[in-house]
């Protein structure tokens, strides 16, 4: 039970994933939300690496590399959007960006 198995990684990754999701859902600060997104993406890497180990297959690791790449790209664009928003609104509060609705 205590011996670490793939199951442990899965559980941990899902907990991280959920914390990330919670951050996206609950926080109003855009920058925190962006960080939560990174959490979500990173949790997947745990999965991939754990499965890679489990399966003795490098695909998971390669996939994780791609994931990291994508996370980086998304962070860049996300922060770009944040800056654009900040320029217009002088805030990074998400509830200030709710003009579109209905």
């Amino acid at each position, binding site marked *: 039970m205590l011996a670490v198995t793939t199951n442990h990684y899965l559980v941990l990754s899902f907990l991280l994933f959920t914390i990330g999701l919670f951050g996206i859902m609950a926080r109003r600060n855009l920058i925190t939300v962006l960080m939560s997104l990174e959490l979500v993406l990173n949790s997947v890497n745990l999965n991939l690496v754990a499965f890679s180990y489990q399966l003795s297959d490098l695909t998971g690791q390669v996939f994780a590399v791609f994931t990291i790449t994508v996370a980086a790209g998304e962070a860049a*664009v996300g922060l770009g959007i944040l800056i654009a928003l900040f320029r217009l609104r002088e805030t990074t509060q998400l509830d200030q960006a709710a003009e579109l609705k209905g």
Partner: protein
Amino acid sequence: MSGADLLFYLFAALALGAAVLVVSLRNPMYGAISLLATFLSIAALFLLRHAEFVAAVQIFVYGGGIMVLFLFVIMLVNLHRMRETTKYDRQTPLAAVLGVLLVALFVTVFAAASFGPPLARPEVFTAGARGISGNTQAVAWVLYRDYLLPFEIASLFLLIAMIGAVVLGRRT
């Protein structure tokens, strides 16, 4: 419980704790630092799973690149003005409930999932072609041989990220 297992629990706890801090700290600067802690813990967990290369990339890209980016932006947009007037949305309880439900659902499944013995062929992680050893080489071999196409597409992706960041960040 082996030492490796102990390390797992340690880093797992670290990662979780830091992650919780990320979503709960009011100050984004502290949040960013907690995020860094999470990233590093996860890198450590990678190491425990024979993913040395990924761990390194994790540290370089996340700890280096992404974290700097975050911190830079936090500075740029002037930290104190980023304080949330109210930290959480009104729907937070709902989000929490949903989170708990999801966790309950998935974790039950994950905990119960049965796998065979792991690491049937450990040589995969270290043995590249022609006897070259080491995880980096092994990953590189797979990456550039089998996954060359996604790799090339990833370059497109990064190009787009670059253009995007420029377009959005550029002062008009």
